């Protein structure tokens, strides 16, 4: 027996609209995603002529630039990683919840400060100042961690009433005036130390004893400026990883008699390790690709030198300066596109690695019974 043939139903207008809209959305969505993917395809396509050229000499032009990129990124990471991770550890584990909910937007704002502004401050304000006060700057780098420890020691010695007034969970805020005072002390002390210990001018000493040149805009400045720009992104991801640790883990450790610091060092850091790793990776990706800060704060001299007091030129800065002048189709044009391709591949790979690691971590937290 055959089933009765149903009368053919004409699609009502609503369903027709729905079909059309779905089709349009699908087409639009796939189109947008393809357009985004086209970036990689375009860059790879435009570097193919270099293969046909087979000119290895041309490639060697890029190597000082690659070195400059690496040097700038390393300098920035040396400055940013300890500060960002320290801040993340403190705000995830020690800070009062109210301060934390205020601090996160503040650091988000720090991330939003445009690179061109940071570069301007670094190149035209910070660089001349550091050139005149090199000894003070180097002293500050040693002095500030020391002053934080000093603050801790003083706090432990202080009366209980004062301790209640200035609790450790708010230290991120009330340490600011303390640090300002300590910076002032260091600046006051530095010329004296420079005079008595180093016998005058540190820069002249560097030049005469070690033969180190000092360029106004150098890797040190780039490190500080780009570190400033990278701190918030490392902080945000590392803080997320640390704050999402299932609370049962930390509570269990503390119930077994671990101090807060031991719980952090032995339990929290190993658990959140992948998350922190991915945070640092994403920070490195940002540091490698940042253009304006390097362009404005580095002096743009393509040198092979490991000295932190000499200038550098990065791939991204070279692209920004030279590509508008390069004639399309010429050797320089293709070389610069190769530079762009390597930046693209590097950041893409690093970010993918970080993302995969982060998703593993999220699954691990889920298994451990924390928040998803």
């Amino acid at each position: 027996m055959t089933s009765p043939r149903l009368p053919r139903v004409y699609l009502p207008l609503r369903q027709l609209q729905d079909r059309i809209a779905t089709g349009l959305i699908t087409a639009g969505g796939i189109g947008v995603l393809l357009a985004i993917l086209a970036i990689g395809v375009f860059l790879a396509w435009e570097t193919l002529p270099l293969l046909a050229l087979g000119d290895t000499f041309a490639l060697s032009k890029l190597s000082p630039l690659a070195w400059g990129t690496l040097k700038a990124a390393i300098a920035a990471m040396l400055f940013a990683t300890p500060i960002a991770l320290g801040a993340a550890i403190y705000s995830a584990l020690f800070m009062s919840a109210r301060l934390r909910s205020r601090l996160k937007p503040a650091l988000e704002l720090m991330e939003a400060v445009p690179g061109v502004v940071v570069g301007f401050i670094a190149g035209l304000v910070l660089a001349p100042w550091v050139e005149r006060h090199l000894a003070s700057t180097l002293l500050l780098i040693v002095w500030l961690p020391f002053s934080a420890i000093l603050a801790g020691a003083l706090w432990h010695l202080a009366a209980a009433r004062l301790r209640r007034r200035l609790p450790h969970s708010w230290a991120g805020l009330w340490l600011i005036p303390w640090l300002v005072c300590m910076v002032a002390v260091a600046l006051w002390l530095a010329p004296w130390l420079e005079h008595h210990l180093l016998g005058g001018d540190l820069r002249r000493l560097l030049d005469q004893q070690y033969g180190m040149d000092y360029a106004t805009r150098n890797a040190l400045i780039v490190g500080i400026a780009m570190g400033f720009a990278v701190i918030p992104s490392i902080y945000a991801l590392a803080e997320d990883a640390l704050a999402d640790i299932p609370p049962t883990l930390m509570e269990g450790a503390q119930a077994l008699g671990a101090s807060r610091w031991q719980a952090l060092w032995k339990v929290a850091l190993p658990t959140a390790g992948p998350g922190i790793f991915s945070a640092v990776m994403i920070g490195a990706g940002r540091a490698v690709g940042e253009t304006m800060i390097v362009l404005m704060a580095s002096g743009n001299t393509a040198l092979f030198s490991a000295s932190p007091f000499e200038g550098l030129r990065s791939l991204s800065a070279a692209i920004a300066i030279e590509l508008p002048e390069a004639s399309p189709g010429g050797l320089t044009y293709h070389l610069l596109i190769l530079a762009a391709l390597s930046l693209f591949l590097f950041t893409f790979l690093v970010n993918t690695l970080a993302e995969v690691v982060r998703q593993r971590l999220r699954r691990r937290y889920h298994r451990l019974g924390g928040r998803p």
Partner: protein
Amino acid sequence: MKPLSEQSKRRVNWLNDGLWPWLCAACVALSLLMLAALLTLLATRGLGHFWPATLEEVTLTSGDIVIGQPVRETPLPLNAGMERLYFTGNRDINGANWRWIAVDDISAQTTPNDLIRLERTPWGDFIGRLVAVESDGQRLTGQAAWDYITTALAQPASQQGSSDLLLITADGHALRQPLSNVSHFQAPNAMSWGQKVTAWGQNVWRFLSEGPRAANTGGGVWPAIFGTVLMVILMSVIVTPFGVLAAIYLNEIAHQNRLTHLVRIGVRNLAGVPSIVYGVFGLGVFVYGIGGSIDNWFFSDELPSPTFGTGGLLWASLTLALLTLPVVIVATEEGLARIPDAQREGAVALGATRLEMLTRVVLPMATPAMLTGVILAVARAAGEVAPLMLVGVAKLAPQMPLDGEFPYLHLERKFMHLGYHLFDTAFHGEDVQAAIPLVYATALLLVLIVLVLNLTAIFLRHYLRRQRGNEC
């Protein structure tokens, strides 16, 4: 291992539990301190520039007299003591705008009330004294001259008539200055506090509303503001529909499998790709590829001078739209994912088609998230400079991209941008020293715009989370 004594155990505990947390706390404090220092520096230097500065008349031990605005003091390079930088203006007479004077050489220092400062179109500022005004054969001195100049400058340039200012500089050099070339007239030492506040407000307004003068070392940034805003508006018009479309497709229509998972990771990662790479793509594909073809097809009579085959407003907005697409997609997707499936199922159960479910239930609920994404995208685009250097920003655009000439919106024109304006004046200007205060003001303006946009996004997101609860 030797067991620790009770006392040393406690010491180790103190080291462990007391020391490291303080270092970590100091990291937070240091980050906040750096941010605060940056913002304070920008605010004080950027806003302080507009304050009518006191002019000093300095008599040197050698007998010379210098009139100028003290700028800063630094230690002398060789001897002990300080030297002070004065802005003396009068580039047509002295040949330079600046003069360094050792503080020890100053024998007298006064601030007479009759010192004036003029802003002129050629040669920049004049600093000195007013002797008289000659207007149509009439010679005015004293208060009458002041009143005449004030009323004349308030009128538009065409009605000022021809009149000359007779001026004298500090060292007695006389000068005849046509009033038509003077844009601003001030006697800062004679001003009361209230007048200074008014003058400060006027200066801020002139900075925001006027075009640059004297190779970007003076004047305002209005064309740069206009260019930035226009470019950002065009960009959001392009990025919003496409970003939302892609997010809806990814989240609502595509089958959730390994491929969509990979695509999602890819989109997320594109947000981390350096902006300069997008600039390279924009230059290669939009400018040279599409722009070049358009030129060949439609504007071939104007070749070899390119119309669309060079950087311009359209290509810049397209490039930035591509750059900010991931931001919009990710934010919208987050908003869509937060909407509980029960809402969708409820709508479909009541007989809605998918389109109706999307437009009447899902999208209204996801609107704040979309808005957050667009605001974040705008904030990112407003501060981005590197890709624009490749696809169409200009240090001084002769024509605005929007004017009364058909077709009113000129997409192929180059435009000025606040961030690039800042970079260019600070690093490629002729007289960087003179431009620095303006650069500070520009930087402050840029940071304010970006921060306000970001704060809006943060509050919007906060509002959204509170309204919806954190869990759904």
